[in-house]
């Protein structure tokens, strides 16, 4: 791996504060797998450290990122234009382990709370048996639902929950998850892949606590320094001690943490 300078092919604003960016990066595209991230340094004097952003999708030599403007780093990123370059390290991190099950009894459930959808598209691209993949998207209202159409294009079954009920079910993604288990049950067998806020992980964990055959991998965020495991900055507390979000994660088994 080395520091790469990659070119922005296409930048789109898809919501007020959410951007989708295509980057020409063959070296990353050929090696990345879902759940990994790139560590971006924008060329400015308003950030010191890099900012981690998940690989949202991969199409041949192009990787896409989907990001929300939160502070100075993501704002600087959003101000760049097609043809500008980015300095990145990547692909980094331990991503999702895909569980191809011969036994179709296992269903894949992808849960994205808010910006948490970011790493899940690449995952949906890679999972086989797309028809049986369930995607649950959560957002505050109908205008903030992300990627619904794109997941449908990949033949996933998409469920949406919004806080105000303006699209899909009123409530949270975990209400929907509970519903699914109650209605369908999947014979208690499922692979859950989730990304979102901490509170969402907490509720998922309590829903699946007694379900032995439900496996759940989560992409867990932490303030990050170097991204390569050197600085010990992005520590995550697990049941077996501190781990590094950048190297041991960002994807962890939910039962390692709760």
């Amino acid at each position, binding site marked *: 791996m080395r520091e790469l300078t990659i070119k922005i092919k296409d930048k789109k604003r898809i919501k007020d504060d959410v951007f989708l960016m295509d980057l020409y990066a063959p070296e990353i595209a050929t090696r990345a797998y879902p759940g990994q991230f790139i560590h971006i340094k924008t060329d400015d004097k308003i950030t010191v450290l890099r900012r981690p952003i998940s690989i949202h999708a991969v199409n041949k030599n192009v990787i896409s990122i989907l990001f929300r403007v939160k502070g100075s780093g993501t704002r600087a990123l959003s101000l760049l234009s097609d043809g500008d370059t980015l300095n990145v390290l990547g692909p980094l991190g331990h991503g999702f382990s895909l569980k191809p099950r011969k036994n179709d009894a296992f269903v894949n459930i992808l849960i994205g709370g808010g910006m948490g959808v970011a790493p899940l598209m690449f995952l949906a691209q890679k999972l086989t048996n797309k028809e049986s993949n369930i995607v649950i998207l959560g957002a505050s209202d109908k205008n903030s639902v992300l990627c619904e159409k794109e997941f449908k294009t990949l033949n996933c079954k998409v469920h949406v929950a919004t806080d105000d009920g303006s699209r899909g079910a009123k409530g949270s993604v975990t209400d929907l998850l509970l519903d699914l288990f109650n209605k369908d049950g999947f014979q208690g067998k499922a692979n859950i892949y989730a990304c979102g806020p901490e509170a969402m992980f907490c509720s998922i964990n309590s829903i699946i606590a007694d379900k032995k055959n439900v496996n759940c991998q989560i992409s867990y965020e932490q303030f990050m*320094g170097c991204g390569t495991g050197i600085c*010990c*900055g992005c520590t995550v507390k697990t049941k077996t001690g501190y781990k590094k979000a950048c190297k041991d994660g960002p994807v962890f088994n939910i039962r390692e943490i709760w």
Partner: protein
Amino acid sequence: MKLDVKIGRVKLELPVVCASGTFGFAEELKNLVDFSKIGAVITKTVTLDMREGNPPPRIFDTGCGVINAVGLENPGVKDFIEKKLPAMRKVSVKYIFSVGGFSVREYSDVISKVDKFKEIACYELNLSCPNLQLKRIVSQDPDAIYKLVRKVRKETNKPIIVKITPEVSDITETAYAAECAGADAVSLVNTFFAMAININTFRPVLGNVTGGYSGRAIKPMALYRVWKVYEKVKIPIIGGGGIENADDAVEFLLAGASIVSLGTVNLVHPNIANDIVAGIKSYMDKNNIKTLKRLIGKAHEK
């Protein structure tokens, strides 16, 4: 052009080193970094027993600097010898071993366990650990520095670098205490005390509440301290704090550092030492400065 420089008897081929805690044990970066352009790597500080470090979050970007509260997470000297050292042997670079401790005894103990390994060229004593007896950090107290360095001096024939905190009213006193006690070089600066508060949650950002400030923002303060110490001590200074490019590095050399250290910038650009070495060379060329010696402390010439 030769840029070699000496710490005690040990020669570094280049006057650029990677600061403790910002380069791990070097081996982690072997696929990412060209080590031929690095004078030495100062290891992450190692203590007698392993330390799991502070609760998260541990690192925060203020926009012009970085506050960290890693809390000396390290494998402890036993695991260092068994797990890290064998991997470090596969990387061709000079190592300065950073030692930490919570009592004088601990520094000696750690050194006595690793002194036989020839991979370790020198020691850097990180005197910014809280001392359990003193109830403050050793490098704030000239007497404590003197006693500790005297004791450790007896344990080893390898060069000893004493790394001091900038958080004192007069850093020349603490640097001078290190020199008097037999240190071969002083290293400055370590981080400044700092914190940040999240105004949305009303809570401090860092798990440890307070941390140490490094990066771009501290450069002028660090430079000032190198300048002052140069006027007081004769031993070489490893100077750094906020260096991001060759111009910054040259400033430190002009202020009196014999060697410059790169810290926070390594977290962003792990290969930056290469550019900085090249930049120092071209600066010297351009200004017709033939030897490193002529550059060091040049800004003090009247």
